[in-house]
């Protein structure tokens, strides 16, 4: 045998993977881990919602998520893709959708919403990462436009184990009821109430004074969708996401600023007509949207500048819809509108390449200062 090792001699060696490019190590989180962190961050506000609205809310949550998982599996079967349920993205979509629904909405709302979110919002685009719009918001808006009555019936909080709260068996009846549960004590939300009263010519301070006291409450004991009432818990979850590096500050800060700035100006100019910034930020889905919905990776821009524009746009649009639009809450619409702009924003907000100017041309070399010196 020649002493020269050539590839012909390699027979005895263990087969090594030939097409494994660098890097040979990996770090950071996996997709599933990212999704798990987001769910962890959502958990406190969700549990609070369960407690506040009782069994019907829990049923709705389970049905919505179940529908999303089923729809995902169904589509993947149909298109011959391998199952991606393990990455948790469908579960998270269902979770976010459930949090944005009226807590006592009947099961068919959750079922239908789950299917719309996954099929129309995600899979027709080509699955995870391909969708232009936030799937949960697509479903929410579709439901709101199609079933405005059911989707705006806000039940008065009836915490679990309280005297009036329905038991598990009763809750099944409520959940199964169609089109809506007639005997639930419903009430308007702050945004909805002020909007209807304004339309009747009653000013905001009067409307707030005359309205039910469940309209606004720091502790979260207020009407609203399943996951939005525990404002402080939502905020805590959002801060956790920031701290763990899952999201950056740009989008949430810009969304909140986009709502607060016009609200400040409006309220200062005409307090009878416009709610204050605090009321705007702490009601409806402002915080949930800012931290959990607008920050969806797939449907938001991926540079800091783009994220600021995107978030600010959502904030402003939310305020505009809330103040002048036909619906009391505008977060979902605002998110979808800005989702549509994301590709454009991404095109114009590219990072500068090292050694190049923004327009892509190479930098001028700096003159060499060889006169001074150490």
């Amino acid at each position, binding site marked *: 045998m020649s002493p020269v090792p050539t590839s012909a001699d390699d027979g005895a060696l263990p087969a090594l993977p030939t097409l494994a490019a660098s890097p040979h190590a990996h770090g*950071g989180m996996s997709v599933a881990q990212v999704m798990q962190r987001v769910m962890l961050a959502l958990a406190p506000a969700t549990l609070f919602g369960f407690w506040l609205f009782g069994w019907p809310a829990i049923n709705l949550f389970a049905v919505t998520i179940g529908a999303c998982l089923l729809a995902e599996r169904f589509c993947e079967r149909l298109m011959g893709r391998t199952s991606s349920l393990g*990455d948790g993205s469908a579960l998270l979509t269902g979770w976010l959708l459930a949090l944005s629904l009226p807590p006592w909405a009947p099961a068919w709302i959750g079922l239908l919403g789950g299917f719309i979110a996954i099929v129309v919002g995600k899979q027709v685009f080509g699955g995870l990462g391909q969708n232009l719009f936030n799937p949960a918001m697509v479903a929410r808006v579709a439901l709101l436009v199609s079933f405005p009555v059911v989707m705006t019936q806000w039940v008065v909080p009836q915490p679990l184990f309280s005297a009036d709260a329905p038991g598990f068996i009763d809750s099944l009846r409520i959940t199964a009821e169609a089109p809506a549960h007639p005997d639930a004590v419903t009430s308007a939300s702050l945004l909805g109430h002020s909007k209807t009263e304004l339309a009747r010519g009653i000013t905001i301070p009067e409307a707030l004074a005359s309205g039910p006291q469940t309209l606004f409450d720091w502790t979260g004991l207020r009407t609203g969708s399943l996951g939005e009432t525990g404002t402080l818990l939502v905020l805590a979850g959002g801060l956790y996401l920031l701290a763990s590096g899952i999201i950056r500050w740009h989008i949430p800060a810009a969304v909140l600023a986009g709502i607060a700035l016009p609200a400040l100006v409006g309220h200062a100019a005409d307090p009878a007509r416009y709610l204050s910034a605090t009321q705007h930020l702490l009601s409806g889905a402002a915080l949930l949207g800012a931290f959990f919905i607008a920050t969806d990776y797939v449907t938001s821009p991926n540079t800091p500048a783009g994220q600021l524009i995107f978030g600010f746009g959502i904030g402003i649009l939310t305020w505009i819809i809330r103040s002048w639009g036909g619906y009391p809450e505008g977060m979902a619409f605002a998110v979808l509108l800005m989702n549509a702009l994301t590709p454009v924003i991404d095109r114009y907000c590219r990072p500068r390449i090292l050694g190049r100017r923004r327009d892509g041309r190479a930098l001028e070399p700096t003159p060499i200062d060889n006169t001074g010196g150490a």
Partner: protein
Amino acid sequence: MGFLDKIFRPLTRSEPWGVHPDERKRPASETPIRRLPPPPLLYLPLSQHVGAAAEPIVRIGQKVLKGECVATAKGNISAPVHAPTSGEIVAIGPITAPHPSRLEMMAITLRSDMEDRWAPLEGLADPLARAPEELARRVAEAGIVGLGGATFPASVKLGLGHRSRIRTLILNGSECEPYLSCDDRLMRERAGGVIRGAVLMRHATGAREVRIGIEDNKPEAIAAMRAAVDGHADVQVCVVPARYPMGSDRQLIIELTGIEVPAESRAADVGVLVHNVGTAFAIHQAIDLGRPLVSRLMTLNGEALAQPGNYEVLVGTLVEDLLAFAGGVRGEPARLVMGGPMMGLLLPSAKVPVVKGCSGILALSATEVARDEPGPCIRCGSCTRACPVGLLPLEMNARIANAALDAAVALGLHDCIGCGCCAWVCPSRIPLVQAFNHAKGELAAHERDKKRTDATRRMAEARSERLEREAREKAEAAARRAAERKAQKAREAAESAASNSEGAPA
């Protein structure tokens, strides 16, 4: 964008580039350098550097001494190869290259006589009084190439420094790749030699100052170098934050001088040269002792390795022999990598030789390389934040997947340094670097094809032009001859007429 830019700049000033991979330098970094005895056979590839392959000047059967030149540099950018130990040349022919492609490359095979006898060597006396060109020539003769892995002939870079005015010479001691610690050990154990090399290089390049960048995760090396630098006012040890890829030229230059090297330019164009600390040490050895580059420091590391550590290895030693000396591998390594885990090359087998640019061999276990199957991009933007160059890896990857290579180039594909930060952070484990390397390869092949067809076309054009010219010249010559003949005839006619009239009786 200018106006928006001004408003947004303070808000969007991007977070620091790069990543913080698990260092895993210990325990290898805590073991002193051990010298590997000469193996029975050494394989010396003729192409261990950027540029033209060296040309063998030995015959089979010839006896050589350690340090004797066995292949000379060919052309302007090339480097000679020297016998790493004494022995006999037994073959000159192709061997498997230390490259994932399993391509073959030409090499000289040397059978060691186990005596390891040096050829007579002579250092350069009083080098600082000599002309810079003379130092560069010595460095060229010693076959020194960039030992950080770039393997560019060091003398060419020194000469470059002398031609274009250099202000700052940077020595790269950052060693940002995880697992590797050979530069760290070199600076701890042989700081004096490194500093001496720095002083010689400063003289050879005419630089005003030398800055040595060392990452803050190597306090012992920083201390040793600071102690060794004492007395050289123009050599400065600078501590840089540990972050990958700090050792990349452009990043280190920004960190140490604040200068951003323009795209498509060389560092020398802005008055900076970057060399590895290992190269500085080799230059000291070549000039002061006359020793050519025949060995280098390497880190052997990875969970599959019995005795991780740092070794001084003769160039040409088989990886197999090296692993055996380091106690062998436990079980089957999932991957053998030459270099660091972020940018190293996957080795096709252990039967490949160590080359000059090889800073380490990693025997990685299955758990170390475990990675999930790639998933779809979730547009999380982690890759963009990590990219030290400011590229959009996700967008480039999407273009390449759609075979839109030109669009990927427009996004900056050629500015990609292949550092691997993007692929390292990607939660979907998308093999981004693989895609970029593939695309760069395709483009280079295109370019070559285009050059070739252009050349063929030019040749064909030249040929038809030549034929045309020849035909034209032929026709012209024929016409000329015809005209001459006509003129001749007319002349003759006139002459005969004249003579007739002359001869006519009056």
